C-alpha cells in the first residue's frame, strides 16, 4: 500500500515567493499514527541555515520542547523536520520545469552539513521539500526518509494553515465548552467504557495542538538560539498617554473596590460581636436568600483581582489554553460589573418613583386580601362549584382561615408606614451591591409578607395528608393486607374482628368528609403555589444573571474567530499523474475553521445551572400534591459556589487591585503589539 503523508504548512511559508532563503531548515513535529503507513508532518516555522549544529542544536530543541504542554510532549517531540531547497538556475531565477538531474546535482553539492544534521537528528523521519514552480503552489516534496527507507513515491496532502495567534484566532476540534455532564442514570457495563477508550486511528487532536503551539515554539526557539531580547517597547507619545490613562483608571477602580472591601470587613467585625449575634442568627434565618447572594457578592469583590492577575499568558504556549485562561480571568469582574449596572438602573428607577410604587403596593395587597383570600374562603364555606360540602366542617375550616387572615392584616397595618423606607432600602441596596442582592431581598420580603398563607397551607396539608393516609390504611384493612415498610410491599395479615369493626366505623366519616377537606386543600395550594412561583421566577432571574458569561459574549461580538468549533479542508487543487509519470499525486487544501454560535456558547453555562433539577423530580412533586406532600418553595438552581474567605489587610488589597488592572492592560497592549508585528512580518 502506498504510504500517505500529510504536510501542514504555515501560510507565510507557502506564499513566500522571494527566494532569498534557500537551503533552509524546517522545524516542527512529526506525528505518527497507529497504522504505520500514515504520517503527519506539522511545520511550525522555517529558518535559515543555522549556525548551531550537533549537540547545541539538540539542547535548544530540548529546551523548546520543555516549554510545550505535557499532552503534546507525550505524543510528539519538537524537532528539526528537514530541509527546504529553493532551486535557482544559473541566472539566479527560479527555473521552470526543473528536472531531477539538476536537483540531485544541487543536492549533492552543498550539504555535508545538512547530511550531518540529518544523521544527528533523533527522530526517525526526515523530509526534504523543494520549491518547484511547476506545481501550483510552488511546494513539492522531494523525498522523505521514513524509518530508514528513502521514499519518494507516496500520497502527499499539503494543508496550508494560518498560524494561530492569541487574540486573533486558533483551531479547535471539538465543542470545547462542553463540560462532561455528570449524569449516569443507568449503570453501563464495563465494556462500553472500553469502547470509548479506544485509541483513535488518526491523531488529529495532537496535530491541532501542535499547530496551536507553533507560534510560541518559534518565539522560544528564536529567543534561545539567537539570544535576542523581545522587541523593546517603542516609546511614543500615544503609549505614554495610554499608560497614564490606565494608571488613573486603575487607581479609581481599586479605591472603589477597597471601599467595598472595607465595608464588608466592618460588617463582619460588627456581626461577630456577641451583642449582635442574635441579630445575625435571626436575620440569617429570615433573610436566607439575601445572605447567600451577599456572600457570593463579597467573595466576588475579594477574588476579582486575584483572578484577573492569574496566569501569565506568555508562559502558556498553546493558544487554545491561553484563550481559555483569558476567559476565566475576565469572568468575575465582568459579572460583577453587569450586576452593578443593572442594580443601579433598577435602584435609580425605584428611588425616583417610590411614592407610586408604595401606593400601587397598598392597592394590590388590599385587593389580594379582600377579593381573593377572603371572598375565596366565604365561597368555599357555601356551595363552591356545585359541590355539596359538609356544612359543619366547611364552616370550621373557613372560620379558622378567615380569622388567621384577619389577624395578619391587622398586624401589617402597623408595618404599613415603614413600606416607604423599605422600598428606599431596596433601591439603595441595588445601587451599592447590585441587582442580585436586592432581588434576593425582595424574595425574602415576599416570603415574610405571605407567611399567613404559608401557615394555613401547611395546616390544611397536614389534615389532608393524614386523612388520605388513614383512608389508605383502612382500605388495606378491609382487604386483609398490611403494609410492610421493610420490603415495600403488602403482606396478608389477619386482623381481629374488633379492629375490623372500629375500622369500618371510622372509614365512613373519613371517606365522606374527604371532599370538604380536599376543596380547601386545593384552594390553598393554588394560592401558595402562585406566590412560590413568583419567588421562583425571581430566583431564576438571579441565577441567569450569575451564570451568563459576559466576557465571552463581548469577545464573541467583537471577534468571532476566537471561538472555533471544528475544522474543514478547502481543496485548492488536486493533481494526479498529469504531466510526468514520475510525479506523485498531490492535493493542496487550506485549513478553515467553523465558529460557534451564541447559543452554543451560552448553552453549557445554563445547563450547569439546571443540573440540580431533573424531569423526574418535577413529576414526583406534581404527584406529591395529590397525596398531600408539600411542594418545594425553591427551584434549587445552582449558584456560583462561595469561595473561602481570606483576611487581607486593606493596603495589600488596594495594591493587588491596582497591580492586576495595570498588568492586564499591559498584556492587552503587548498582544496588540505582537499581533501587529506578526501581521506585518
Amino acid at each position, binding site marked *: 500500500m502506498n504510504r500517505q503523508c500529510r504536510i501542514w504548512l504555515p501560510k507565510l511559508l507557502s506564499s513566500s515567493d522571494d527566494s532569498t532563503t534557500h537551503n533552509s531548515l524546517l522545524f516542527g513535529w512529526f506525528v505518527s499514527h497507529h497504522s504505520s503507513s500514515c504520517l503527519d508532518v506539522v511545520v511550525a516555522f522555517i529558518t535559515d541555515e543555522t549556525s548551531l549544529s550537533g549537540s547545541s542544536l539538540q539542547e535548544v530543541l530540548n529546551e523548546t520542547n520543555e516549554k510545550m504542554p505535557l499532552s503534546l510532549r507525550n505524543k510528539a517531540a519538537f524537532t528539526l523536520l528537514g530541509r527546504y531547497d529553493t532551486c535557482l538556475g544559473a541566472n539566479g531565477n527560479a527555473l521552470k520545469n526543473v528536472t531531477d538531474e539538476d536537483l540531485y546535482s544541487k543536492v549533492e553539492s552543498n550539504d555535508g552539513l545538512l547530511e550531518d544534521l540529518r544523521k544527528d537528528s533523533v527522530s526517525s523521519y526526515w523530509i526534504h521539500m523543494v520549491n518547484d514552480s511547476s506545481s501550483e503552489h510552488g511546494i513539492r516534496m522531494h523525498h522523505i526518509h521514513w524509518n530508514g527507507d528513502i521514499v519518494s513515491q507516496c500520497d502527499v496532502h499539503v494543508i496550508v494553515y494560518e498560524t494561530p495567534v492569541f487574540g486573533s484566532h486558533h483551531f479547535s476540534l471539538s465543542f470545547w465548552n462542553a463540560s462532561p455532564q455528570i449524569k449516569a442514570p443507568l449503570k453501563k457495563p464495563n465494556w462500553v467504557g472500553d469502547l470509548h477508550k479506544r485509541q483513535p486511528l488518526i491523531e488529529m487532536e495532537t496535530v491541532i495542538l501542535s499547530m496551536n503551539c507553533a507560534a510560541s515554539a518559534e518565539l522560544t526557539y528564536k529567543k534561545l538560539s539567537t539570544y535576542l531580547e523581545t522587541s523593546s517597547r517603542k516609546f511614543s507619545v500615544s503609549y505614554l498617554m495610554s499608560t497614564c490613562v490606565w494608571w488613573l483608571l486603575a487607581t479609581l477602580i481599586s479605591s472603589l473596590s477597597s471601599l467595598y472591601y472595607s465595608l464588608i470587613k466592618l460588617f463582619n467585625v460588627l456581626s461577630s460581636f456577641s451583642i449582635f449575634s442574635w441579630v445575625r442568627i435571626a436575620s440569617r434565618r429570615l433573610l436566607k436568600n439575601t445572605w447567600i447572594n451577599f456572600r457570593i457578592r463579597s467573595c466576588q469583590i475579594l477574588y476579582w483581582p486575584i483572578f484577573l492577575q492569574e496566569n501569565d499568558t506568555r508562559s502558556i504556549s498553546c493558544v487554545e489554553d491561553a484563550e481559555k485562561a483569558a476567559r476565566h480571568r475576565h469572568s468575575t469582574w465582568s459579572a460583577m460589573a453587569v450586576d452593578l449596572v443593572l442594580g443601579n438602573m433598577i435602584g435609580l428607577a425605584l428611588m425616583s418613583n417610590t411614592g407610586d410604587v408604595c401606593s400601587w403596593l397598598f392597592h394590590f395587597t388590599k385587593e389580594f386580601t379582600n377579593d381573593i383570600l377572603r371572598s375565596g374562603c366565604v365561597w368555599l364555606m357555601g356551595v363552591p362549584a356545585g359541590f355539596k360540602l359538609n356544612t*359543619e366542617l366547611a364552616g370550621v375550616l373557613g372560620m379558622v382561615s378567615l380569622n388567621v387572615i384577619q389577624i395578619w392584616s391587622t398586624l401589617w397595618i402597623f408595618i404599613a408606614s415603614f413600606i416607604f423606607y423599605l422600598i428606599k432600602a431596596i433601591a439603595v441596596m441595588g445601587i451599592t451591591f447590585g441587582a442580585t442582592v436586592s432581588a434576593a431581598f425582595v424574595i425574602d420580603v415576599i416570603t415574610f409578607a405571605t407567611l399567613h398563607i404559608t401557615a394555613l397551607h401547611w395546616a390544611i396539608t397536614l389534615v389532608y395528608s393524614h386523612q388520605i393516609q388513614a383512608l389508605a390504611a383502612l382500605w388495606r384493612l378491609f382487604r386483609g393486607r398490611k403494609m410492610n415498610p421493610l420490603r415495600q410491599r403488602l403482606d396478608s395479615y389477619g386482623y381481629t374482628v374488633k379492629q*375490623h369493626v372500629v375500622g369500618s366505623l371510622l372509614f*365512613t366519616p373519613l371517606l365522606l368528609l374527604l371532599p370538604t377537606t380536599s376543596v380547601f386543600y386545593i384552594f390553598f395550594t393554588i394560592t401558595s403555589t402562585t406566590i412560590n412561583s413568583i419567588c421562583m421566577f425571581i430566583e431564576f432571574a438571579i441565577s441567569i444573571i450569575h451564570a451568563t458569561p459576559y466576557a465571552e459574549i463581548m469577545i464573541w461580538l467583537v471577534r468571532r474567530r476566537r471561538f472555533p468549533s471544528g475544522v474543514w479542508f478547502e481543496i485548492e487543487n488536486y493533481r494526479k499523474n498529469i504531466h510526468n509519470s514520475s510525479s506523485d499525486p498531490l492535493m493542496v487544501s487550506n485549513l478553515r475553521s467553523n465558529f460557534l454560535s451564541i447559543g452554543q456558547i451560552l448553552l453549557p453555562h445554563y445547563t450547569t445551572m439546571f443540573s440540580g433539577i431533573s424531569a423526574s423530580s418535577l413529576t414526583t412533586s406534581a404527584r406529591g400534591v395529590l397525596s398531600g406532600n408539600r411542594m418545594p418553595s425553591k427551584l434549587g438552581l445552582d449558584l456560583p459556589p462561595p469561595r473561602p474567605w481570606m483576611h487581607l489587610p486593606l493596603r495589600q488589597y488596594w495594591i493587588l487591585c491596582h497591580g492586576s488592572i495595570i498588568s492586564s492592560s499591559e498584556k492587552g497592549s503587548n498582544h496588540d503589539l505582537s499581533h501587529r508585528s506578526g501581521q506585518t512580518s
Partner: protein
Amino acid sequence: MDKNLTEDSSSPPPPRPKWRKVAYGGMQTGYDDNYTDETFLDEMVMNANVVRRDLLKVMKDSISISQYLSIVALVVLVWFHTLQSSLDENSLLLLDLSLLALGFLVLLLTEEKMLSLTLLLRYLTNITFFTTGLYILAPVYQTLTRSISSDSIWAVTVSLLMLHLFLHDYSGTTIRAPGALKSPSLTSCISVNASVVASVFVASRLNSRGHVFGVMLFSLQVFLFAPLVSYCIKKFSFGLHLVFSFGLLGLTLYAVYVVHRLLFVLFLVVVVVVNVVCPYWLIRMQEFKFEINGPWDEAKLCFDITD
C-alpha cells in the same frame, strides 16, 4: 422398523425389560417417558370427599340460614320504623338494653366457660368503651350524609346488605367466644364491615342525636352478637335451636305482613326457596357428583396434625 416389515428376515427386536414404576433410575429403555401400564387406574378413588346427605338433615341445617335472614329482616324493620318516626328514642334505648341483657343471659346459660368473673368484667369494659365511642361519634354521623340524596343512600345500603348476606359465615360465627381455635376468615370480616357501614349510612339519615345513637347501638349489637348467640344455642341443644328459629321466623313474617303485603310475599317465597327448594335441588344434583382422586394429584401440605 420399516426394514423389519419389508424384509422377511426373522430377527425379532430384542426383548425390553419390564417396566417398573419407580421415581428414580432415569429412562427405561424401550418405553416412552410418559408410559403408563395397565395398573394405572387401580389406585383411583372415586368420590372420596363427598358427604352423603339426606333431605331431612339438609332441611334442618338450612333453618340457620332462614333464621339469619329473619334477623336481618327484623333489623331492617326497626330501621324502617325509626325513619318513619314510629319508634322514638326512649323505646329504642329500651330495646337496646333489653336485647343486651337477653343476649348476656343466653350466653351465660349455654356456655360453661362464661361463668368466670374476670371474663364478665372484660366483656363489660369492652361494651362500655364501645358504647362511649358510639356516643361520641353520633354527632359526626348525624350530619355525614346530609349532602347526599336519599336515593343514593338507599341504593348503597341495599347493596351493602346484599354483600353482607353473601359473605356471611352461616356455619359458625365471626365473633368467637373466648377460647375458640380458628380465627375468622377474611370474607366473614368483610361481611361484618359491610353491615356496619350500611348501618352507619342509615343512621346518618336520622334527625336527632339520640336517634342516631340508639339505631347505631341496636344495629351493631344485632350484627355483631346475634350470630354468636344463635351459635351458642345451637351448640347447647338442637331442639332449642329449632324452636328459637321458628319463633323468630313467625315474628318476622307477622311484622312484615303488617308493613307491606308484597314484601311479605317476597320474604315468604325466599324462605320457602331456601328451606325447601334448595335442599331438594342439592340432593338431586348430588347424584351427578363424580370426583376422581389418585396418586397423580398434587401433594397437599397438611398443617394441623393432631396426634
